[in-house]
């Protein structure tokens, strides 16, 4: 009797989420799959067209271009942001004075609304008279045209992403503070130097946190949208060098009203992110030591 009562209570407490996850997650996910096999403009009911959208998608040069841009951005930003946040966290993990102040300074940029920081970086990157190129000129570097140069536009957005590394830094810092001091003491007794302690004690111990940030970085990187939308007005200029996958998906779905095609793109994105997550989890099983 008690278990039946518990079942009732369990269901009562879970019911909002049961309903919510079906209506706002499960149904849309399934509907996206269905729409991906149809011609759908929202205004008219979907018309089944089989795998036509997918055939077109695999021949769509813009889609490939956007996927390429996204992969470059995701890898670039993950590497640069992870490195930046890890270095910041290692520097801060020194029981130094003013740690709260430093942490605040490094963390603040990651709080900025993306629209505001995108506009700010557009202003800083602006070609002539931009503050970044002026600063570079002061040390004798002739800066590129950044957002106006197809060669540099993605790098510009990657650098801007690294400015928001404060969030990952806080996670790293928490991980570093959990490393048992006895490990360092033992390493020092064994005569391990600074770099040996870093590579044989610190990094292996915080490896779960590294993989967590890596995974979050990739998942977020593949969904990059707002920066490119704000900075290019949605066009992905110059020369489609910042046309990211979700931006293209948005354009196809909400500008061209080709919702069926957009759903095919969406499902491909879902599968990519799913596979990527699996790969990272696999890797983490091999490289991460979870025993403390």
């Amino acid at each position: 009797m008690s278990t039946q009562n518990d079942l009732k209570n369990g269901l009562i407490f879970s019911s909002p989420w049961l309903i919510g996850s079906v209506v706002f997650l499960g149904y849309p996910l399934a509907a996206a799959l269905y729409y991906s096999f149809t011609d759908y403009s929202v205004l008219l009911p979907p018309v089944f067209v089989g795998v036509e959208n997918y055939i077109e998608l695999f021949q769509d040069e813009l889609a490939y271009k956007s996927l390429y841009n996204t992969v470059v951005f995701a890898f670039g930003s993950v590497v640069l942001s992870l490195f930046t946040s890890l270095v910041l966290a290692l520097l801060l993990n020194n029981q130094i004075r003013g740690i709260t102040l430093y942490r605040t300074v490094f963390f603040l940029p990651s709080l900025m609304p993306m629209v505001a920081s995108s506009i700010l970086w557009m202003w800083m990157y602006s070609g002539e008279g931009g503050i970044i190129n002026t600063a570079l000129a002061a040390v004798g570097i002739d800066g590129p045209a950044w957002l106006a140069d197809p060669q540099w536009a993605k790098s510009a957005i990657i650098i801007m992403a690294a400015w928001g590394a404060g969030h990952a830094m806080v996670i790293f810092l928490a991980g570093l503070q959990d490393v048992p001091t006895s490990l360092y003491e033992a390493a020092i007794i064994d005569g391990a130097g600074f770099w040996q302690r870093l590579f044989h004690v610190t990094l292996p111990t915080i490896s779960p946190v590294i993989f967590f940030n890596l995974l979050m970085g990739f998942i977020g990187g593949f969904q990059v949208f707002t920066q490119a939308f704000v900075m290019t007005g949605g066009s992905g200029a110059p020369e489609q060098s910042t046309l990211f996958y979700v931006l293209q998906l948005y354009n196809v779905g909400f500008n061209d009203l080709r919702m069926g095609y957009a759903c095919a793109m969406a499902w491909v994105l879902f599968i990519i992110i799913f596979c990527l997550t699996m790969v990272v989890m696999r890797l983490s099983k091999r490289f991460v030591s979870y025993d403390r």
Partner: protein
Amino acid sequence: MSANPLNRSRTLVHLPLVLLALAFLFPLIWLVLTSLQPREQVGKIPPEWLPRRHFIEENGHEIFVTPPEAVGSDKVLVLVEEGIDRGNRVLIPAAAFSDGRAALQRQEADQLVEERVRAKLVQSVPKNYVFVKEWHLSKYDKRPARGLYVTPESVKVRVEPVAGNYGESIRSLTAGEDDKALGLGELVARTSFPWTERSSPGHTITFITYLSNTMLVALLSVIGTTLSSAWVAYGLSRVVWKGREALFGMTLATMMIPFPVLMVPLYSVFRALGWVGTLMPLWVPSFFGSAFSIFLLRQFFLTLPKELSEAARIDGCSEFQIFWRVILPLAKPALSVVALFQFLFVYNDFLGPLIFLTEPDTFTMALGLQQYQSQEGGSEWHLLMAASCMLSAPVIALFFFTQRTFIQGISTTGMKG
């Protein structure tokens, strides 16, 4: 012996830290400084750091003026007394004025016509003089700006921020072109709010409209997410029932579904419900819980001892009473983390509002600012920076008030991953 992992010399660590801190602060400083510069200073090559204003003294009063422009050669300013230019003040070369007559050149069709008209000398302008114009804060200011020819020494420069840019950016973000000329006070008074009836006469869409939309959505979805997620997390942690673990596993799995994958079907669902163009798509779903918040709260509820619930049950409390009277009050730290994260998410969200908000009177601040930026296209940077500051200020203020919750919240998400 020091237990410090990387410690060789603690003071040496400050050097890279200070440099990095400056690099991270640099954009923020430039943001604030630009937002305080007069429009003539913005975009100068090379850029100038501090906001500087030019002013002259006239009859003991200071008046702000535009940056001086050189006159170049000896000229005279004359008041024309006949012909087409009658009543106008014209600056002509000194040699072109003699015996109370000025030689005026005028383009007529494709030839230059010169005529001598009667004119009165107003002021002679030696070549070392400069031209300045009276400076008005707003480009919507209808008052005429006088032009003045003065000695270079009389134009003084002072470092002084233009705080008025902030008010001016509020004015610029007003949707209706005609309304931009209104005074700030009147703009605020005529602002349409989420509860103002749509297209009611005499109302106008301003920055305050966007602000109130954002705050309303944030408030509702923070309440919704916190309450519903706590409710669900309770069922997933403090009630033992068959299927609990399966549901929790499913909850974790849903965190992997990216929003862009769902946005097309969600759009058509909300469209069918008639919610597109209203704020509802942005807050109603939060009342059904969010996977991330449920996860965080469940982990927290699991740390509370079982005996608490058992004791309450013996006292005759129902499951709901245990949730409301025993568990929730103890979960305040976790609840505030969830509320804070949800607020940040909604406040900073851009893609959701972009898709679901089709009417300008429902725009959130982020969307309103982006729309304004795309119209202005690379000009008016001082106003864009002022608006960006105003968009960022609430989150930054929130951070300073809730720093501890913030840091703890972020730390736990990483550790539990």
